[in-house]
């Protein structure tokens, strides 16, 4: 049953006894019982690991190995490239057999350059780098470098490199470190299970992050309806006897697992539309990321595995598995008893924001929190869409306070400027609007399409601008040559006739002023693409695809 939100219940103590609420959202059934009956088990080592070189937001990593090389578990096999990037490690020992494009978990069914490892089954670790295990003596910069080398990205969803996030935060005064244990969507239970089983690791990781950021306060946020996880976390915090880490329970309202929504719930602060949590003095890290930080610093192990929820009525024995990065989805599903006969969709992620995959021959990546195999009855195909009757149920549930019905109107009619005026780029694609739409309109699909369209236009505009600037520069150069020639001529004449050519310099100034005016006007009308900083890999991918497509036929000689 979907019901709009009620008032937040007070939970916890001290500074967070009064919680806030964000607009809209939905109370969704969690389906968490399906996959939490058994403890997390290791998924085992597949014969072949396919490790994509880009599992994070930012630049793709460069391979450090070649086919034929033997690698150890935890060995860095691709190095980061540029400042926003992340290395990739071998998730088990074996031999590199190929470096080639392989299917990647992405809605388009695209391939991505990957390192393929034939495993030897011994799972031999490389020597652990525990040089910073006594992290309290380490400088934050050292720790950041260590985390970067450990290949840690945000495990909650977007996969933003953690070291970059922490380094960016360092330039702000951080008063709150927020550890996000609020499961982002129904069905997903990997954070829940992690908290139940490894609360101590999460706490240690939190304290390392605390050492780096030195916030005034630390909150571990847990959702209502995870009593065991909450008890485990509270126990760990109590046992450690640190007094500035607090466990706070928040109401289970989708999408309160979203960073911005959770910050609003806990502090009442709103992260600026184009800003980051650090702008309001907050850094938010997923519990899984905290555990990965602990592992990297205390145990000296890079990020080579994660907990993946394998669930849905399309799989026989739903449960959580500790999976090596690069393990094929099919391997995990097999470890859960295989598919049921009526399986229809396969999703990576949850039922609200996850994406459908065409087949299961794709590897687990660092951001794979859930593999959701759905039966036909569980999520029947959408009925045909009816016209929008502007009932504005979507407005009621939009956590970004948008007017989804107006966005739909403009997006579907191709009026992209108006869609941007209505803040299309503040849409987080949570799907609440589509969930309550009585006309069954696939609203999110329209918004994604409009965004992609706008990005394409922005790129096109940028290219046109460059062409125009080049053209203007050429014009200016020609003018200058002409002018110089005229001046030389004038000087010659002057020398000959002893007369003054003052007029020319006036003209020059007038041209310059005119050019300046044009330039200024152009600068004013330039609209930078918005909300392009914190993109998910698939969005990034879309932009690049669009760019590549356009680049293909170079417009000859238009400048």
């Amino acid at each position, binding site marked *: 049953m979907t019901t709009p939100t009620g008032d937040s219940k007070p939970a916890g103590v001290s500074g967070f006894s009064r919680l806030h609420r964000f607009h809209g959202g939905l109370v969704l059934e969690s389906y968490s019982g399906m996959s939490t009956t058994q403890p997390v088990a290791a998924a085992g080592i597949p014969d072949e690991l396919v490790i994509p070189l880009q599992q994070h937001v930012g630049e793709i990593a460069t391979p450090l190995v070649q086919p034929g090389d033997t690698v150890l578990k935890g060995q860095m096999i691709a190095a980061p490239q540029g400042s926003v990037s992340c290395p990739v490690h071998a998730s088990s020992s074996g031999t590199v057999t190929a470096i080639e494009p392989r299917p990647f978990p992405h*809605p388009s069914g695209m391939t991505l350059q990957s390192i393929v490892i034939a495993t030897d089954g011994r799972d031999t670790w490389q020597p652990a780098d525990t040089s910073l295990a006594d992290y309290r003596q380490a400088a934050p910069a050292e720790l950041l470098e260590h985390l970067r080398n450990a290949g840690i990205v945000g495990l909650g969803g977007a996969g933003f490199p953690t070291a970059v996030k922490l380094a960016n935060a360092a330039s702000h005064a951080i008063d709150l470190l927020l550890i996000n244990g609020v499961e982002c969507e129904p069905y997903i239970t990997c954070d829940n299970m992690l908290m139940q089983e490894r609360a101590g690791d999460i706490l240690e990781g939190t304290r390392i992050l605390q050492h780096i950021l030195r916030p005034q306060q630390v909150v571990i946020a847990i959702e209502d309806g995870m009593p065991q996880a909450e008890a485990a976390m509270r126990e760990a915090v109590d046992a450690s006897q640190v007094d500035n880490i607090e466990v706070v329970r928040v109401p289970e309202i989708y999408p309160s697992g979203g960073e911005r929504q959770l910050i609003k719930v806990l502090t009442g602060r709103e992260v600026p539309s184009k800003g980051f949590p650090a702008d309001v003095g907050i850094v938010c890290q997923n519990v899984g990321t905290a555990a990965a930080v602990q592992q990297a610093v205390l145990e000296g192990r890079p990020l080579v595995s994660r907990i993946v929820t394998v669930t849905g009525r399309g799989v026989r024995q739903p449960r959580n598995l500790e999976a090596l990065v690069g393990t094929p989805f099919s391997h995990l599903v097999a470890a859960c008893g295989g598919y049921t006969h009526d399986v229809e969709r396969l*999703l990576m992620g949850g*039922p609200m924001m996850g994406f*459908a995959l065409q087949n299961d021959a794709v590897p687990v990546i660092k951001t794979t929190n859930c593999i959701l195999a759905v039966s036909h009855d569980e999520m029947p195909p959408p009925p045909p869409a009816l016209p929008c*009757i502007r009932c504005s149920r979507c407005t009621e549930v939009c956590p970004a306070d948008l007017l989804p*019905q107006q966005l739909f109107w403009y997006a579907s009619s191709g009026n992209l400027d108006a869609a941007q005026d209505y803040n299309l780029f503040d849409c987080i694609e949570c799907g609440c609007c589509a*969930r309550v739409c*009585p006309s069954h309109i*696939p609203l999110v699909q329209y918004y994604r399409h409009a965004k992609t369209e706008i990005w394409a236009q922005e790129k096109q505009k940028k290219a046109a601008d460059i062409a125009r600037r080049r053209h203007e520069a050429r014009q200016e150069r020609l003018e200058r040559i002409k002018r110089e020639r005229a001046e030389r001529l004038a000087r010659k004449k002057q020398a000959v006739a002893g007369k003054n050519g003052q007029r020319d310099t006036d003209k020059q100034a007038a041209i310059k002023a005119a050019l300046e005016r044009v330039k200024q006007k152009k600068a004013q009308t330039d609209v930078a693409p918005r909300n392009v900083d914190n993109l998910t890999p698939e969005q990034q991918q879309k932009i690049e695809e669009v760019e590549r497509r356009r680049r293909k036929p170079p417009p000859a000689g238009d400048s």
Partner: protein
Amino acid sequence: MEFRSYSSPHLPSQGEVPVIMQRVLLALLPGIACATWYFGWGVLINILLASLTAMAAEAAMLRIRGRQIAATLRDRSALVTGVLLALALPPLAPWWIPVIGSLFGIVVAKQLYGGLGYNPFNPAMAGYVVLLISFPLELTLWPPAGDWPSLPDTLAVVFAGILPAGSSLDALTMATPLDGVRTGLGMEETLSELRDTGLFGLVGGHGWEWINLWFLAGGLALLKLRVIQWHIPVSLLGSLLLASLVFYLLNPEQYTPPQFQLFSGATMLAAFFIATDPVSASTTPRGRLLFGAGIGLLIFVIRTWGGYPDGVAFAVLLMNMAAPVIDHYTQPRVFGHGRRQ
């Protein structure tokens, strides 16, 4: 293994347009029953004629436009238009009144603009206004509340224009409370004098107050079921209450008391069923407050100083016109944006 591809969100959408329309129709039933109790068979005949015409017109237009007929009719929006229009019409009006009104509402005000979801004006009210302007006399044929002709007599009046033996049109019909009070005040009578004419009930118009009460009940049910939101009814009734209260306090002999305004004519029908038509209403939360308040105020103005028996239809259409502008200036503050942009 291969799978079918879908776009997120994957959880199926909830709620259905036909269910919404169905609930609107059900919520109208108590009010319809009460109206029949006070005004007789004509109410039901009007509903039958208007809704059949509406459905037929919708089907014909869909056919001409090459759209799916059965699937679209199933959304029940044409039925809602027909019923709402019928409820605004006098029970002894000739049969072609609901037919013409319905035809105009569906063909011109709805389908020519693109059908459900695309009509800028409330189709039922557009149909009503066309009738009101074109056939003002026929739109006064209300029997006295609680004193209506038998079924055969009603059928004869409606379909053949034959009055019962020994009766006249004046004997058969009577001004509605709103109309009577307006005419009376226009002839320099005071409200205390008008109180003796039998136009008044306990708080509102005689008979009408009960009809309004039942529409209010149906409307509250719609609120409870979340078919409509509170903004428009509350602001509409609030502004009507406020405006009538101010003038009533200034001169209680010249202006009707607020409770009379709230419980006469089509006030409750307008507040919960007509003005809340989402397609032609404002769509932002603040905009809906303005939209409703504007309708309430206009209802008071037209009833008090206008020349029509009620002000609902014009008030709704005028605010329909203003809805796009209201929406433009009342966009909510988006998450993470400053208070003022």
